[in-house]
Every structure is written in structure tokens, then in C-alpha cells.
């Protein structure tokens, strides 16, 4: 499996670290339901075949965090985005809906 880093180009898997599901959001640790929320966040994961959105870290390269959309059954990579761009887009979307 190879990942096309937006900064470095296509690189082999051994330059990257898998860092988990990119679709879950860390709960508010100060919330009243924090304990239950963290149990759900930490342990209750589904693992369906097919496309996943995952966080990958280009550890032996440019050190960028990436959001990789990948079919876990075939290893085919559908897209690679900078996690920074994904996070900024989510932030501005939240801001827009709040205003």
C-alpha cells in the first residue's frame, strides 16, 4: 500500500503511522456525561468492510497529519487530504451554521 502525501508525493507505507478513525470526535471531558461519552468514544467502534476515513501521520517524511479515505477490504486509497485543511473546513462550517 502506498499513500500519496500532498506534500511529499507517493510514499511507501513504512513512512507512515496509522493513527485511528478520523470520523470520531473526542468528547468534552468536562461534560456531565463525560464518562459514558469517553467509553463510547474509546471502545465502541464498528469495523465495517469498505471505505474508512482514517488519520495517518507522515512520520518518516514531512510530519503532516493526513486524512486518508481508504477501502479496508482492497487497500485502495480514494483520497488523501491534509488533516489541517479538513479541520479548518469543519471549523468554518460550524461557524457558518452558528451565525
Amino acid at each position, binding site marked *: 500500500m502506498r499513500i500519496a502525501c500532498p*506534500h511529499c508525493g507517493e*510514499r511507501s507505507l*513504512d513512512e507512515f503511522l496509522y493513527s485511528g478513525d478520523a470520523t470520531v470526535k473526542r468528547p468534552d471531558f468536562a461534560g456531565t456525561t463525560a464518562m459514558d461519552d469517553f467509553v463510547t468514544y474509546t471502545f465502541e467502534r464498528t469495523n465495517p468492510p469498505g471505505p474508512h476515513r482514517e488519520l495517518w501521520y507522515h512520520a518518516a517524511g514531512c510530519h503532516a497529519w493526513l486524512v486518508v479515505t481508504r477501502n479496508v477490504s482492497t487497500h485502495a486509497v480514494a483520497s488523501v487530504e491534509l488533516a489541517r485543511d479538513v479541520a479548518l473546513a469543519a471549523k468554518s462550517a460550524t461557524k457558518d451554521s452558528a451565525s
Partner: protein
Amino acid sequence: MADHILTPSSAFMDWHPPATPKLAASARETLTMASFAAARGKEQALREAISAAYGAVLPKSAGRVEAGGIAFVWAGPDQWLAITEHEGARDLEAELKEKLTGIASVVDQSDSRVVVRISGSRARSVLAKGVPIDLHPRAFAPGSVAITHASHVGIILWQVDDAPTYEAAMFRSYADSFAHWLFEAAAEYVSAQP
């Protein structure tokens, strides 16, 4: 309190580089280096300051440019490594800090990294034994840069010329491991052959 006098010493314990027309390696241990990263929202100001001070256009992606005796090497998103000879006690950190006040963070790297130069017609074959990227001229040429690894040692690799000549910068404490790998990989090209 006792006086401590620190004497500079080589990063390499066992240094017996290949030195043939087909393959030569040398350690560049007389460099001054500084990394700099743009402050948030100051990328354009940084480019303009470097251009005004040195006449260099900072590479936006993995690349290397030379201007005014300094090499500017892309070292990650919005980060670069500036490298030059330490002649006359030139101090790149101090120099860049003064020129980039408020627009970039500058950190001295002179003692953190060492640079190894590898050149000759066999240089590409030797590097290919440990570097997992394509070094064919159509993929990697003079001016190209890659942050990658060589036999598990993290390096920033760039090509200087078509000889070809490459340089690899690595953390100082890994220099000996890198050299050990390099000399092993080079052995088949330097042993006595007709």
C-alpha cells in the same frame, strides 16, 4: 566550579569513506545550519524577507535553491533549512533571527545535524539500497528534495548536480549508523575490481 571546555569532535566514530571516481563520500562537518518556520499567516512576508535579503525564492514544495552562498532546503510545510559554510564564524541562526524578526521562528541546527555528501556514477545505486524513493533522474534531479529515510535513519536528501552528487542531512547521533550502512552498501563498488 571547574571549567568545562568543550572541544568539537566528529560525529563519526568510524569514518572510512569510499574515495573512487565512481563513488566518493565526504562528511560536511564545517557547516552552519538554521531551520526556520513561518509564523501563522506570515508565509508571504517570510518569502519577501528572504527574497530581499538573499535573492532566493523559497521552494513551496520539496526543493532546494542556492543564493548568496546559502542553500535553502524545504524541510516540511512552511519550513526550511538554511545551510552554509561556517567560515569566519558565520552564525546563520543569529543572521536569520535578525532578518526574520516577527515573521518566522529560527532555530540553530548546526550541531543537531550532519551532512554527508555522496557522489559518483555509483552514488544512485548505493542510495537505492536503503532509500525507499525513486531516484531515477525523471523522478529526482538536481534541486529535488525528499524527507525520507535511509536504512531506517531519518534523512533529508537532496541532489546537488548531475554527477550525480547527493547530500543527506541526518541527526548527529545517527551519523555513525548511517555511515555504517553507507560503507556496507558501497563495498561492492569500491573493492578491487579490474
